């Protein structure tokens, strides 16, 4: 049968760190990149050797490095997630309007964000799940229309098993037609001409199984490669 049960899925799917690792492999040497708060931030840890990537944070730093040792934090030097950071040599500091000039003026090569839902037309919903609670948007609506490429990194299905790749988003939108690539726990999917195009999938999952976990038609062009990620912690 082509339907995979949740227990099996849990065993074969990539962890968040493995998805982050996979996304990191595609970031080019010399790129300027903004990583969203949370899972996307993990990508920086898996930057391939020999590539220099400059990370941007909304609150006005380009070229920040790793977190300082505990107890060595300078709370005037934080990232958009309000975590303490350090500066690499060649870093630059600027105010918020200049920071978003970089974002909105098309100067970043890549932004990677989390998602509640992504539609086959590239719409993203990632800022609230309904009309309850306290809404908060941050820089997501700016990033999705600014960076040269905007990718999403996400579990393939929600915690309650619902597809996150859908025909149309039902949650409030963050942006319209802005996402070009999705890295999930099961697959790598491009969005082209308003269609999901499958590029890679886990070897232990059939196309039919993957389709059954996806809320819109998965198209195939040429070959579908094998999605592999090394075991990480």
């Amino acid at each position, binding site marked *: 049968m082509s339907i995979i049960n949740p227990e099996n899925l849990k065993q074969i799917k990539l962890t968040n760190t493995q998805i982050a690792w996979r996304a990191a492999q595609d970031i080019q040497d010399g790129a300027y990149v903004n990583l969203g708060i949370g899972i996307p931030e993990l990508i920086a840890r898996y930057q391939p050797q020999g590539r220099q990537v400059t990370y941007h*944070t*909304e*609150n*006005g*730093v380009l070229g920040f490095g790793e977190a300082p040792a505990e107890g060595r934090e*300078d*709370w*005037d*030097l*934080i990232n958009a997630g*309000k975590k303490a950071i350090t*500066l690499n040599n060649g870093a630059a*500091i*600027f*105010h*918020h*309007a200049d*920071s*978003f000039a970089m*974002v*909105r003026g098309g100067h970043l090569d890549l932004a990677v964000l989390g998602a509640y839902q992504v539609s086959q037309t590239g*719409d993203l919903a990632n800022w609230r799940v309904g009309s309850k*609670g*306290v*809404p*908060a*948007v*941050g*820089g*997501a*609506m*700016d990033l999705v*229309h*600014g960076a040269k490429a905007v990718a999403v990194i996400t579990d393939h299905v929600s915690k309650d098993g619902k597809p996150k790749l859908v025909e149309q988003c039902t949650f*409030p*939108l*963050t*942006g*319209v037609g802005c996402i070009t690539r999705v890295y999930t726990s099961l697959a790598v999917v491009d969005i082209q001409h308003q269609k999901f195009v499958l590029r890679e999938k886990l070897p232990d999952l059939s196309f039919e199984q993957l389709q059954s976990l996806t809320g819109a038609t998965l198209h195939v062009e040429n070959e579908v490669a094998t999605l592999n990620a090394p075991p990480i912690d």
Partner: protein
Amino acid sequence: MNCTTLPLADAVSVIEDNSVVMISGFGGSGTPIELIHALIDRFKASGSPNNLTIINNNAGTGKVGIAAMIKLGMVKKMICSFPRSSDAHAFSEKYLAGEIELELVPQGTLAERIRAAGAGIPAFFTPAGFGTELAEGKTVQEFDGKPCVMEHWLKADVALIKADIADSHGNLTYRLAARNFSPLMCMAAHHTVAQVSQLVNPGGINPEHVVTPGIFVEAVVEVPNPKQEELLIRAGEDYT
């Protein structure tokens, strides 16, 4: 040049009931905690200022700073991009009880609207927010095939900001990423009050290193060794 040097209490006396107040900072970085607490002192003593509209990226955390202002009932409305946080109870409780208004603005649009106010640009177009509920009711126009939303400038009566070094003309520098919204808010407010760690004579700042020229600053308060809001929050301090 027409910038004056004042004690904390005098510096915040310009804020009236119903004022629109910009407060600098992103998290604890750049938050003028001494100015905010001087304003709270005044409110505790006199019941004023109240019904304030506060413009900041967030909506306060813990029980100090903007969160304390909200908890004490000084704030009628927040204009911000990210009022949610792990410890933003003050705002959440008031908001969910319908006791505080919220104007939610994408972070880049917030920064650009503040700059626009300072630069005399009444409105501009941006693709940010198009097709979302934050753009509902706004004018949309296409440029190069891309639909854009018209956004208006965002002005304030007063800005309370934190800088590092000031000279007596009001020229300012900032420490590390504590710069964030401050230079923009200085431009956009009718009256800007800067708390600074160090006050120097004219000539004490290299003209090429000035980040905020003194023309944007009306008053300077010297607060050596200012408190870091993040540390106050972590220590569980309560200013309500």
